[in-house]
């Protein structure tokens, strides 16, 4: 019988003879993922789920990602900022907390401010960069709040402190930009807040476009919920903001005095991807593999690419990340990449209990992404349909953040640990709260495992303990292959779903010996 250790030893021997670096780790393909947002985090997690032999390194200076979705609810005081922050512990095999400076596609390394990270394939999901050049005097102290974080809270505070009857103005760029319905949702939720706390206040939307997504749905909601409060000024009526000064948004023909201004500037691909945008602002990629049109081995996804007709949304980035992960695991094994099928649904809230949405299903035809189907919520629907969609929006956010960031539920994790047909961890390990005859002792006690190992190490051990310890006899709960005499329901399936591994990790990481 061939053990994994012998296999690796053999591989290393051949590699040394062939003149390649004789490092055991080099036998495992390395993927570097730059950016721990919805695109990068999802891609890292699906690479691990679909091929745990790939070593995935996440490069992001932050250990926590703050989402853009739901930040309008933070601005309107409906959610605390921490409800939109997610730790990046459960995303990749390794996390290099560094700023990526450049990708050397020839040498296949990502240069960071903490050193170089080598890769076989790189995945860039850097999101957007804000471009203030086109607006004279910008940003001029006006927040964009177009990323999660400090500016979101600053804008919330400015709106709370606005004088009675004041003017809140949002300057909106031309397409394409991140989250097309975002500015109109923001105006709506701020209107909900002001309607209660500052009812004589006005909201001004100064737009560099003559129309916007879900426009009829937003305008219907504004007439119904906030009559007379929100004014939208399109480009044709001099809506494009060309300059900002102290307390003023300046358009071609008008000046608007604002008490609180929110300047959402034009955007382009995030810094690290700009070497691959061919001067266009957004990167072109192969629609099947998401490999850059100009750099072999470099895949780019999310807001940084031109993926029209897919919008620049968290949902699009998440679905592109899965298509890209499927392609990369195939390419790393010299297999043809599979054709993508992707979806998007953008929910918007016109009030905390009033939602609507736009959806699309996408595949690839004639070397381009194409919409197979598309649709949106009907105008004139009953209020209960809007309430329903608002609840769906909250559920969507719950699901996508679990999917992308691997947020586990410790309570469910204990269930996974104990269930005979799931983890059944007690067959070999001691767990808290069990009679001493109710657990095995082949493996170490887990009553204090959270004090000995961090969440990332625990997750790695559950997925495949032999990656870190080739002599381990523990089963690999997150692998899809490499087992003997597999029964039909488990064929090509891991024993545990990866969401169960997230739950189990959350449970075990919390065990510190206190019982």
């Amino acid at each position: 019988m061939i053990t994994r250790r012998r296999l690796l030893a053999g591989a290393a021997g051949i590699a040394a003879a062939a003149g390649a670096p004789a490092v055991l780790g080099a036998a495992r393909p390395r993927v570097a993922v730059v950016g721990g947002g919805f695109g990068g985090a999802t891609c890292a997690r699906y690479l691990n789920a679909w091929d745990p032999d790939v070593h995935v390194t996440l490069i992001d200076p932050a250990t926590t990602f703050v989402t853009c979705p739901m930040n309008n609810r933070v601005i309107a005081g409906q959610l605390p900022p921490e409800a939109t922050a997610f730790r990046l512990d459960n995303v990749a095999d390794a996390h290099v907390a560094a700023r990526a400076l450049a990708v050397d596609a020839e040498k296949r390394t990502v240069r960071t401010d903490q050193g170089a990270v080598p890769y076989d394939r790189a995945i860039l999901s850097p999101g957007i960069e804000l471009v203030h050049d086109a607006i004279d005097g910008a940003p001029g102290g006006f927040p964009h709040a177009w990323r999660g974080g400090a500016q979101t809270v600053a804008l919330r505070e400015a709106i709370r402190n606005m004088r009675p009857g004041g003017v809140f103005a949002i300057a909106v760029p031309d397409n394409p930009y991140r989250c097309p319905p975002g500015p109109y949702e923001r105006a709506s939720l701020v209107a909900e807040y002001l309607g209660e706390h500052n009812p004589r206040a006005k909201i001004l939307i100064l737009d560099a476009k003559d129309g916007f997504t879900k426009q009829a749905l937003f305008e219907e909601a504004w007439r119904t919920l906030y009559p007379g409060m929100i004014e939208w000024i399109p480009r044709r009526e001099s809506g494009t903001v060309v300059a900002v000064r102290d307390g003023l948004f300046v358009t071609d023909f008008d000046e608007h005095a604002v008490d609180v201004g929110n300047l959402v500037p034009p955007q382009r691909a995030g810094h690290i991807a700009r070497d691959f945008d061919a001067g266009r602002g957004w990167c072109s990629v192969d629609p099947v593999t998401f490999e850059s049109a100009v750099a072999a081995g470099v895949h780019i996804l999310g807001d940084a690419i031109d993926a029209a007709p897919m919008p620049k949304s968290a949902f699009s980035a998440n679905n592109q990340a899965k298509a890209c992960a499927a392609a990369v695991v195939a390419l790393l094994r010299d297999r043809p990449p599979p054709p993508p099928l992707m979806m998007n649904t953008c929910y918007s809230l016109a009030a905390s209990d009033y939602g609507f949405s736009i959806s699309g299903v996408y595949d690839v035809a004639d070397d381009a992404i194409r919409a197979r189907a598309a649709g949106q919520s009907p105008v004139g629907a009953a209020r209960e349909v809007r309430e329903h969609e608002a609840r769906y929006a909250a559920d969507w956010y719950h699901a996508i953040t679990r999917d992308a960031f691997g947020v586990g539920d410790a309570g469910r994790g204990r269930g996974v640990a104990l269930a005979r047909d799931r983890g059944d961890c007690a067959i070999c390990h001691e767990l808290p709260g069990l009679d001493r005859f109710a657990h095995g002792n082949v493996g170490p006690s887990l009553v204090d495992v959270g004090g000995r190992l961090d969440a990332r190490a625990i997750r790695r051990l559950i997925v495949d303990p032999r990656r870190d310890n080739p002599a381990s006899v523990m089963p690999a709960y997150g692998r899809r292959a490499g087992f003997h005499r597999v029964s039909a329901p488990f064929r090509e399936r891991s024993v545990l779903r990866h969401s169960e591994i997230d739950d189990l990790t959350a449970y075990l990481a919390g065990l510190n010996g206190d019982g």
Partner: protein
Amino acid sequence: MRLRSSLLTATSAAALVGGAATVAPDPPAVSRGDRIAATCVTCHHPGNAHIPPLANVSAALLAAQAETGNTVMHRLVEGLTEDDLHAVAESLARSHGDAP
């Protein structure tokens, strides 16, 4: 690339020498059903209060969404072929309504 082909050669050689054919170094390709199921879990999660879970989903039940759905799902089902529906239903059934 050179390193990896050497590795594959070494693996098959070792398998022959060892006489064991049970260790699969490469995971199976990700099936179409699994890839479509991965798009479902962007919205569907067992901890959700309103978007329903995906356990016990059949191709027929999915197809019926196109007729009876009145919010989001009917729009998405319109973008799936008959084959897609069967593939994703089979994948979800084997994964207890979850992915991956």
